[in-house]
């Protein structure tokens, strides 16, 4: 949910940064979206199409890098991939685990055009 307001935030940040660098345009936006970030990829893509309209990123190519979730076990210190929040350690069965990756919701980088 909120993919639209998140898309709007993305555009706002991109515009801010582009202005800081006196950009004439933005040709690419690279987003890091964790698979457990709570964001629905299709909804975000759709929302981004709307949000970039009339902005400096209107013609930018959008890259969505989906980050797979990785958890670490506090008991045996092993790291493992996980597809959901039920991250029971596959090595020692402990529930004492935490997520290392997978909840990202950030703008990795943008490509700007300057004259």
């Amino acid at each position: 949910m909120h993919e639209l307001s998140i898309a709007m935030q993305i555009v706002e940040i991109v515009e801010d940064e582009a202005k800081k660098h006196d950009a004439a345009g933005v040709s690419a936006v690279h987003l890091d979206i964790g698979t457990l970030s709570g964001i629905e990829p299709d909804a975000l893509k759709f929302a981004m199409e709307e949000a970039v309209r009339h902005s400096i990123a209107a013609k930018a190519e959008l890259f969505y890098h989906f980050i797979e979730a990785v958890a670490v076990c506090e008991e045996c210190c092993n790291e493992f991939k996980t597809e959901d929040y039920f991250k029971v350690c596959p090595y020692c069965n402990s529930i004492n685990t935490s997520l290392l990756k997978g909840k990202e919701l950030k703008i990795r980088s943008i490509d700007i055009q300057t004259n």
Partner: protein
Amino acid sequence: MCGTCGCGEDDHITYRKPGEYNLFHAHEHAHGDATHTHAHDHSHEEHGHQHGHDHSHDDAHTHTHSISLERNILSKNELIAERNRSFFEGMKIVALNLVSSPGSGKTSILERSITELGEKLNCAVIEGDQQTLNDAERIQKAGAPVIQINTGNGCHLDALMVNKAMKALDLKQNSILFIENVGNLVCPSLFDLGETKRVVIISVTEGDDKPAKYPTMFETAHLCLINKTDLLPYVDFDMEKVKETALKVNPRLEFISLSAKTGEGMSDWYAWMQKQ
């Protein structure tokens, strides 16, 4: 553009005390029932006729370069949340973000806590709902200062709303601030309010697989209150199963079972509050 519904107006949010008009000027935006008449939405550029000067001689001179940002998208909310957090820490205020589905008993738990503890509970309350002053009126009747935030179409509170509401409350040092979030087990999990602890509340009538169905909320909470224990004889609710499931999502989650109706378990809740 409004992030909730995509329309042109930005602020449908109101902040009120029971009996008062708006403390803050916000745009009362009525959407109407079925039709959205937003004349400003459609501009001609949308049809792809860009009569612009895209292909200019300057093209040969444009340089493209990459700027690394590594910037969190929700950073705006997080910055304000951290400001709230610093304020709470400075004032030694324990801010509790109460989240749950609608109807789990958040307001009833607060009402009972405020009524039973009276003066001993030095507290204030921020209430969040789409509409009505109902919850704020109940809290005021119980005896605590309260501000009601009505989000309009919004489905969660965010740090800015809490920041505005708390300025209207005369918060005291060494007190508790209860923030009763909008009844919703999904969206509030994404929005840090600057709280000290997050308390997720479920009731025994909601099924013991709640943590499995709404893991993001349980993962971000510190305490889980299981309310309406007085109804246990009438429902199929496996207390152990709900705790086991929740611990898989969040091994650090604490649990307290209680009934705001009969008072059972409330003393454990009061003791937990004291410890914070």
